[in-house]
């Protein structure tokens, strides 16, 4: 067995062990915790970068390591680094709980990394549950116990229901083909795809990932969880967790979707409802995090649009879109964390005067929102363009049209947020926002990345293309 294939996972397992140890000690300061986490995240990015081009299978073919999984692992590592980099205050989590916070973040990341490589139904299930359970506890982990319990319970109930449905789907498929290796299913499923037990089984299987990604009808947890958990936790769920969900969605659909007409139709319906619902609900939100939650739901709809094309172009678009969501959503949440005074969930009005309090953050927010709305020259434009082009190539003109209308609707509430940040006069305090120097560097880097990839997306598209080739 070639252990080098398993390097990133081993490294993150080690990180988990470190924080497990630390959480049992009492003497470690908040600062030390933060820097330990930050440094280990940076090393993690390096480890994932190094193992980007390795290739092979592990654990009796239940675990596949290829460019596709390694690319997503890199994204997850970068995402974890970004999230930890804004955890320097961690205002809404009790100081003594910080080691546990990092422990759970690392565990969730590890589980998600394994999820991207899993090609065995049970492995998938275990990884998914491991990451979900880490998140349930993360959500619960905040000073305000009552909110924490409330939110975590809602999240857990929805998640548990979704897993139950997914398990039922696994059972149906396993009942038909006595195999739980995706490789076997790939061969058998296309022949029986028209049988209700198979197609329903497939649909139910996907429900678990719908939950992760926040797709209708398993999207209910998103607004409550986003609003109710610590800002840093929300950031993690909105970025890293979404990337992992997209990764496994693409792999499942690509491997066993088998161009089932039924599945495509269902996915089309779900995609349209998801994006429309997300965008319409977002209009009515006053709370910034709730607004971003509904925006996440809408973006899940766009991603689904790329995936349901079941063509390499569509998958490339979806992979690209994962990067887009990671960067843009993170930038938005970074602003949320910065303007939140005591770790509370800020309202849209609280952005008032941001362009004077911190022009850099306001600029970053503007670019991120423009990117989410798909306005060039941001990375968001390239992402939407790829997905819409793929859909057009498949002849889904009406679908693209609906998506376009949705983009227009979404522009409305993104601009409302921008209006608050740029045009609204703050009610009382207009003292400048203190942005530490490292965060300034990070923000500038994000701005440059968002615009640069928007103008020169070729490298990333090629990488996504190459990764998608390993799916087939």
């Amino acid at each position, binding site marked *: 067995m070639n252990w080098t294939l398993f390097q990133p996972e081993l490294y993150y397992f080690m990180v988990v062990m470190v924080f497990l140890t630390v959480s049992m000690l009492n003497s470690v300061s908040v600062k030390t915790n933060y820097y330990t986490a930050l440094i280990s995240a940076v090393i993690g990015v390096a480890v994932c970068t190094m193992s980007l081009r390795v290739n092979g299978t592990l654990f009796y073919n239940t675990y596949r390591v290829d460019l596709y999984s390694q690319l997503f692992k890199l994204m997850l590592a970068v995402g974890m680094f970004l999230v930890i980099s804004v955890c320097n205050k961690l205002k809404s989590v009790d100081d003594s709980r910080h080691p546990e916070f990092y422990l759970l973040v690392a565990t969730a990341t590890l589980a998600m990394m394994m999820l991207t490589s899993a090609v065995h139904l049970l492995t998938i299930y275990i990884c998914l549950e491991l990451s979900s359970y880490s998140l349930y506890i993360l959500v619960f982990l905040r000073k305000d116990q009552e909110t924490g319990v409330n939110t975590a319970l809602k999240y857990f109930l*929805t998640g548990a229901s979704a897993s139950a449905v997914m398990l039922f789907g696994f059972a149906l498929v396993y009942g038909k083909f006595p195999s739980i290796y995706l490789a076997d299913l790939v061969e058998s499923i296309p022949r029986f795809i028209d049988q209700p037990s198979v197609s329903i089984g497939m649909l139910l299987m996907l429900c678990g990932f719908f939950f992760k990604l926040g797709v209708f009808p398993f999207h209910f947890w998103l607004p409550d969880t986003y609003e109710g958990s610590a800002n840093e936790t929300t950031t993690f769920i909105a970025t890293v967790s979404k990337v992992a969900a997209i990764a496994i969605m693409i792999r499942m659909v690509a491997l066993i979707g088998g161009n089932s007409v039924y599945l495509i139709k269902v996915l089309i319906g779900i995609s349209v409802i998801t994006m429309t619902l997300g965008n319409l*609900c977002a209009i*009515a939100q006053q709370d910034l995090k709730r607004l971003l939650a509904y925006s996440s739901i809408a973006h899940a709809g766009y991603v689904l649009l790329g995936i349901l094309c079941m063509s390499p172009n569509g998958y490339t678009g979806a992979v690209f879109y994962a990067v887009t969501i990671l960067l843009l959503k993170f930038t938005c949440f970074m602003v949320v964390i910065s303007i939140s005074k005591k770790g509370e969930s800020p309202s849209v009005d609280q952005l008032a005067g941001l362009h004077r309090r911190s022009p850099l953050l306001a600029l970053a927010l503007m670019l991120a929102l423009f990117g989410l709305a798909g306005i060039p020259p941001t990375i968001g434009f390239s992402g939407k363009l790829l997905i819409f082009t793929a859909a057009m190539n498949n002849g889904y003109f009406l679908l693209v049209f609906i998506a376009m209308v949705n983009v227009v609707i979404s522009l409305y509430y993104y601009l409302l947020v921008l209006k608050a940040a740029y045009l609204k006069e703050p009610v009382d305090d207009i003292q400048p926002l203190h942005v530490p120097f490292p965060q300034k560097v990070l923000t500038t880097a994000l701005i440059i990345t968002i615009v640069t990839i928007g103008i020169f997306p070729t490298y990333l598209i090629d990488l996504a293309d190459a990764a998608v080739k390993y799916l087939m």
Partner: protein
Amino acid sequence: MTTTAFTHPSVLAAVLTALPPFLAFVLIMLFLQRHRVLAAALAIGTSGLSLCTAVYLLVRHGSGVPAVQYQAEWLVSGNIKISAGAVLDPTSIFMLCVVTVICFLVQVYSLGYMAKDPGFSRYYAYMAFFEGAMTALVLSPSLLQLYVFWELVGLASYLLIGFWYEKFSASEAGKKAFVMTRLGDVAFLLGMLVLLSHLGNLDINELNSAGVINALSPGVLTMSVLLIFGGIIGKSAQFPLLTWLPDAMEGPTPVSALLHSATMVAAGVFLFARLFPLFSASSTAMSVCLAIGTISMLLTSTMAMVSRDIKKVWAYSTISQLGFMIMGLAAGGFVAGTFHLTTHAGFKALLFLCSGVFIHHYNTNDIFEMSRMGAKSLKIPMFFIIIAAAALAGIPPFSGFFSKELILMQLSGLDNPLWLAAGVIGAILTSYYSFRLIFILLRPGANMGAADRSIRTNSNTHGHHHDSRSEWLMGLPLLFLALVTVSIGFFQDQFSHLLSPEATADAAHAAEHISWLPFLAVGLCVSGALWAWVEYGRRGSAQIGIAERLPVIRALFAERWYMDKIYRWLLDHVIYGGVSRACATNDKKVIDGSLDSFARGAVDSGKILSKLHMTNIQAKLMSAFVIILLLALYSFFEA
């Protein structure tokens, strides 16, 4: 014919002609707004450079170097190719020389005329901009490039007419010129699109080739040619879009000399000459052009007969002469039309510049007023203006005689004698109104009481103070133009030979047929001049013209045949009252209404939907399960 190298000396010269004025414009606008001397020096310097390269091109290609065309692909879309570059053939080189010579002279003249104007630098910037655009227009090898610069000279014209923008009438006149020429340009654009959609190419050389012309069906050909002629009507102020040009006289006089008589308005005629083979291919279109030219010529001649504003007289005369050129071209006389374009540019610029001296000196545009203040004491300009008027009237040996005779000859070759008759009447009227003005200026008479105060230039703010240096600067260009006016007629043969060797033979052939034509031409202009003498120049004459004796006719002529009134009515009742109102209503009710209701619907449904999300977890989970169940059931219908 086509060269791809930029190293060709002619191409380099062409670039050096067109590019420096643009650079001068940018530099003046950005850096030299406050440096009057530098701005003028830069503009005149680049103009001089353009003049030198133009003359170099004339000499080089005049001595037998074949025509050159340089093109680079600018836009490719499907099978439509748009190229940009420069074409150097006799037509473009002649026009280039005319443009650069007059530009240079007018800019030197302006040193005196505009000396005290606060917008001196801005004036030279616009002038340089105009020169760049006009030379690039002349050099264009494709219709699209020509169109781009056609619009840019239109912009320059707008800026220069409204140069004294603080004067309400000036800015109004600028707008009027812009809008009216735009009407024609829309037709021009449509014509180009028709050609483009049928040929996929707008290269002028190809449009003129027999193969392309044969490839078009006659209907399409006539339609596209007539649409392009619409652009010519707008730019050259022909009927029915002619009323903007008299109003354009609100600009400074040198501007009128340069843009609104010698060069820019001649761009329309130039375009006609450029596309002459294409136009000739459609006899219907040629007849329409002939008719439009004739109507414009006669109409504006009558207007010139009663005008008291010296610049308006020359403006009407410009339209009339442009109409005359179009008549010549439309009658098949390529050389006749272009030659008249060249001679006209010379003497009309001279007329305007001389008038500028009078206006500068007496601070009025009213000829009677000028005369009363002693216009004839300004000996030198008086002398030059008489030469120029004689050329305009067509008295030998001045340049106008030769070109006019050519056109009359061409008209006499047509089957229908009506055209020749119209030409003859036009020639008499031209002679009449030119000498009417001269005699009025020469003889301060009894008609003073009626001095029309409304046409005094109210240019006190632009202080026309004169000193000897400025008059000297204004005098030199006059002298040069007068020399050109006197001499250019004798180069008719060389001109026609260079321009089109075959046509010379034709012309000589035709001349044998009608040997009486020169005498007719001389007779016409002399009789016109005599008529003017009887009414205005004769000792004891009342200085009231025949047209002025009949109030109805006088009003008709003075009100420009009520064209402005008719346009105003049409504008108010048809455009504003009908079309605009319908569009505004549509915009407000249909477009805004539907968008607003869509937006309101989105917001309202968003509120309802997000309220639905406020329920407890049981309801949410239940609905999720129900939806999944329904989706699962759906598979039985699909499979």
